[in-house]
C-alpha cells in the first residue's frame, strides 16, 4: 500500500529568500546591480576594468567576483582602485544568493552607484540561481562562435543586455568565422528587447554606447 502526499514546496527556497533580501536591500539603497554571465574566457574581467576606467569620474562601481578558485580577478579589479570582493565557490558552478549577500556586506555599498556581479564562467547553471540583481547581462566573445544564442537560449532569453566582445578579432580576415548579424538575429528572436553592444575590451571599440547605457540606467534609479 502507498499513499500520495501533495507538497508544493519550492526546492531552492533558501536561495530565493536570500535573493529577495538582496533585492530589497539594493532597492532601498537605490543601487543598480548587474549579474554578468558568460563562458570562461569571454573577457568579463577585462570588460569590467575598462568600464571602471572609462566611467571613473561619472559612476562609482564596485564588483563581486565569483570564481571556483583564486582571487586573481578581484586583484585585477582592485588595481583600478575600485572595491572588489572575491567569492570562491570551491567547485560550485554558479554563485548563490547567500554568497552575494555576504559579499554585499563587505562592499562599501553606500558609496557606490553600480555593483557588478561577475558570475562563475558558465552559460548554463548561473541562470538557475537568482541573486537579487536588477538585471542579467550576457557576454559572448567572437572566438566562441556565432551559434551560442541558438545553443544556450535560456540566458539570452532572460538577459537585458548582450555584450559581443572581442570584435577586434573580426578584422582578422580568414581567421574567425563569426556572423555577428546571425548572433543579433538569434538573440532578438528569443528576446526582442535585448540591448546589444558589440565591443572590444582590448581596443575600447563600442565602449561609448555601452557606458552611455550604463550611465542612463544609473541615473534612472534616482
Amino acid at each position, binding site marked *: *500500500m*502507498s*499513499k*500520495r*502526499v*501533495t*507538497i*508544493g*514546496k*519550492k*526546492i*531552492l527556497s*533558501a536561495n*530565493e529568500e536570500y535573493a529577495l533580501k538582496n533585492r530589497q536591500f539594493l532597492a532601498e539603497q537605490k543601487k543598480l546591480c548587474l549579474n554578468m554571465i558568460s563562458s570562461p574566457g569571454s573577457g568579463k574581467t577585462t570588460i569590467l576594468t575598462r568600464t571602471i576606467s572609462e566611467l571613473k569620474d561619472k559612476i562609482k562601481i564596485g564588483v563581486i567576483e565569483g570564481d571556483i578558485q583564486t582571487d586573481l580577478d578581484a586583484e585585477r579589479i582592485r588595481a583600478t582602485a575600485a572595491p572588489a570582493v572575491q567569492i570562491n565557490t570551491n567547485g*560550485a*558552478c*554558479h554563485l548563490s544568493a547567500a554568497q552575494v549577500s555576504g559579499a554585499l556586506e563587505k562592499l562599501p555599498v553606500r558609496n557606490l552607484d553600480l555593483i557588478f556581479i561577475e558570475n562563475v564562467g*558558465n552559460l*548554463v*547553471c548561473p*541562470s*538557475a*540561481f537568482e541573486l537579487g540583481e536588477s538585471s542579467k547581462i550576457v557576454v559572448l566573445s567572437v572566438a566562441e562562435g556565432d551559434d551560442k544564442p541558438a545553443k544556450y*537560449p*535560456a540566458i539570452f*532569453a*532572460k538577459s537585458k543586455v548582450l555584450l559581443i566582445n572581442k570584435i577586434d578579432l573580426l578584422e582578422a580576415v580568414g581567421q574567425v568565422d563569426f556572423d555577428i548579424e546571425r548572433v543579433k538575429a538569434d538573440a532578438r*528572436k*528569443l*528576446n*526582442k528587447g535585448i540591448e546589444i553592444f558589440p565591443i572590444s575590451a582590448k581596443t575600447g571599440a563600442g565602449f561609448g554606447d555601452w557606458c552611455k547605457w550604463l550611465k542612463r540606467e544609473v541615473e534612472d534609479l534616482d
Partner: protein
Amino acid sequence: MHETMVAESLLAAISAEAAKQNAKPVSAKISCGMLNAINDEVLCFAFEAIAQGTVCEGLKLEVEHKPMQGRCKKCDEFFDFEVNHPICKKCGSEDFELLPDAPLLLEEIELETE
C-alpha cells in the same frame, strides 16, 4: 552541474516529510522551468548517490519540465514559448514578453504505508 545542490535540497525536503509521516518515501514528483536548467539524468544520478544509506535510498524521481510562458504584445495571447520557434502561436508575431519561469517545485511524494 548544479543538480547536486538541487538533489541535496530535495533530499532534505523529502526526508523531512517522510519523518513527519513516519513512512518510507518510494517516489517523488518535481517540476521545473527552463531556467532551472535541470538535466533529468544528472539530477537522478546525483540524487541516487547522495540518498544511499538514507530513508530515500532507492526512491524514484520523476521530473516534469514546464514550458516558459510568453505573452504576445500584439494580440495579448498567452502561449508556450518554444526556443526553436519563438513566435506567438495565435498571430505569429515575434513581439512578446516572457513571463517568470516556473520555479523548482517538489510537487508530490508517494509514501509506503502498512
